């Protein structure tokens, strides 16, 4: 084994759109289209991208809530997509998810106590008393009073509910937690509390996170490495530091320049604004999927799809999918010619 906890290899998730009288496939949503990356034990990999670029789908596909159209998801070396029911059930103790909307992800008809004990019940862990005790400990651990046990989710605020969801997801001491925009539904004042809770838990329990967000500023705080997604593909993947300091992909550059930072040393001339809409994942552009909004795009970009590869002259492990990653000025020149 390569020392990776999770290896995602060329994963594709295409949703067929059916319609018409005969219920034929009339279109395909290329929600995730060939994504590869890996996660090491205990690290946090951030995934950023605009709304609709397939982040949640990627998370759900890794969990095999969807059956991937193609590719492999290896967890500790074993392909999740090929696992049988029983094997999958075992692995699910080790991979958990925290959803964006804490109103939606908790069953409103269950008490908080029941919600937190659910992982134990499903996997038949412990006795009744043990589960109750453990659930109470978990409540305390995520900063909720024991009295929450017999109450119902919607007696709590958004932040508190997210804590309930977190308590549930760490109950079985997983090795990997997929956090799908865990704070973006929360008030700004509460966001950092929840983020800190997640970081503390990671330090204590040593689990890895895949941290999904549409906001680079949030991801940068918590992540060791960051994947930038655009239209179902990873366009840049690098250590957080590298990505932030030396972004190579025009899309990443635009995202970073959009972060409002009062940093007088930053060169304002590189400030870029993303124009236009994200193309529909039903009908992605040919060649480089970013070319419709890329200010460097050339003819080559429309014909040839760039692959995610080591960026030239960059630190090790800095991957980028752009024909002109190292020489964007050349692209500009070429553009000027035509």
């Amino acid at each position, binding site marked *: 084994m390569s020392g990776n906890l999770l290896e995602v290899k060329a994963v594709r998730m295409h949703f067929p759109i059916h319609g018409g009288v005969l*219920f034929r496939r009339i279109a395909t949503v290329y929600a995730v289209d060939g994504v590869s990356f890996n996660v090491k034990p205990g690290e946090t990999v951030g995934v950023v991208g605009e709304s609709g670029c397939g982040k949640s789908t990627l998370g*759900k596909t890794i*969990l095999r*809530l969807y059956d991937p159209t193609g590719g492999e998801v290896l967890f500790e070396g074993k392909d999740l997509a090929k696992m049988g029911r029983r094997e*999958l*059930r*075992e692995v*699910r*103790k080790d*991979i*958990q*998810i925290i*959803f964006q*909307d804490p*109103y*939606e*992800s*908790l*069953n*409103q*008809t*269950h*008490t908080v106590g029941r919600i937190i004990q*659910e*992982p134990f019940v*499903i*996997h038949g862990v412990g006795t009744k008393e043990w589960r109750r005790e453990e659930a109470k400990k978990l409540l305390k651990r995520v900063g909720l009073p024991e009295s929450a046990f*017999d109450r*119902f989710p*919607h*007696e709590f605020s958004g932040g508190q509910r997210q804590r309930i*969801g977190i308590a*549930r997801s760490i109950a*079985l001491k997983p090795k990997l937690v997929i956090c799908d925009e865990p704070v973006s539904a929360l008030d700004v004042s509460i966001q950092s509390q929840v983020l800190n809770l997640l970081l503390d838990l990671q330090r204590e329990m040593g689990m890895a996170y895949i941290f999904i967000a549409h906001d680079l500023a949030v991801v940068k705080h918590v992540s060791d490495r960051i994947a930038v997604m655009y239209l179902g593909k990873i366009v840049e993947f690098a250590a957080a530091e590298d990505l932030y300091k030396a972004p190579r992909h025009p899309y990443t550059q635009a995202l970073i320049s959009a972060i409002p930072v009062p940093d007088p040393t930053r060169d304002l001339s590189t400030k870029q604004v993303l124009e236009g809409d994200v193309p529909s994942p039903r009908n992605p552009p040919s060649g480089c999927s970013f070319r419709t909004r890329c200010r460097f795009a050339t003819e080559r970009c429309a014909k040839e799809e760039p692959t995610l590869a080591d960026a030239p002259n960059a630190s090790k492990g800095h991957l980028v999918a752009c024909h002109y990653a190292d020489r964007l000025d050349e692209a500009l020149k070429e553009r000027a010619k035509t």
Partner: protein
Amino acid sequence: MTTLPLDPLTRKKIHRFRSIKRGYYSAIFLAAAILLSFGAELFVNSRALIVRYEGRFHFPTYGSILPGTTFGLDYRYETKYRELKRKFKAEGRGNWVLLPPAPYNAYENDLTEGIYPPTAPDAGSGHWLGTDSTGRDVLARLVYGFRTAIVFSILLLLCNYTIGVTIGCAMGYFGGKFDLFFQRIIEIWANVPFLYIIIIVASIMIPNFFTLMMIMLFFGWIQMTWYMRTATYKQKSREYVLAARAMGASDPYIIFQHIIPNTISIIVTFMPFSISSGVVVLTSLDYLGFGLPAPTPSWGELLRQGTSNLDALWIVSSVVVSMILLLTMVTFVGEAVREAFDPKKHTVYE
């Protein structure tokens, strides 16, 4: 945990239901009427409630028949308690008979020489709502007809919902080919003219309570199936279900622990309407003569008699008034339930 705590949403719904007064009171009234109708033998019956004869008490209401000889009469068939009462009174020997307030059953023809039924309501004879064209007590037929109709509707509802919830849930949850298959079946089913089928069946054989129910069940399961399919489909893609799946929960666990509890309000909302439609369908079939076999007391049959004997207005007015009262109250309950359980009113994002 001694009591199962009701979640506040459900509590709120129940509270809202109780605050809609006319629905709430209609529900209480209907529940009382249904419960009372199960003990109808105590109120409307040709058998006496209590007979005191030679120092001993007899309670003939339930149980096997007491032959006339029990009370020193000269016949071995069932005692005629109304006559017995008159006899005891005339004798004045301390024997007595306590009759129900309406001392007739739904099947007997109360015929007196020289008087041709239907007879008008008359408190003296105990025919509170008169008799029908064969001399049967209208009140008795109304009460027992109500019981038949309600029992029929409730049983039909239980069967319909059991099938509907099972298939609908499976369709919505498992989707795919299974779903498509049943969708097509339902489309075909829904286009079969239900009344014709019943009329055809009724002209081949005389339907009884159960065959009639089977025929209605044959068509009735569709509605709930369809609603449950949609509801399940919606719940299934919600994140709390995804969370359960991600935890490794099995399909039955998710269906029974998560989806059904969250679709229960749909089931509850449709109940009153199913009951009223059950009553209406049964009554119309009886009215047309395709319903329950002849002597069974039923509102449809009464309605038919009433409309063909319009000079005996008490028949038609009793059944029409009862029908209107029942349907109005069921509608009030249905309205209130819908109002109280409407999910759109409850999704509060504070």
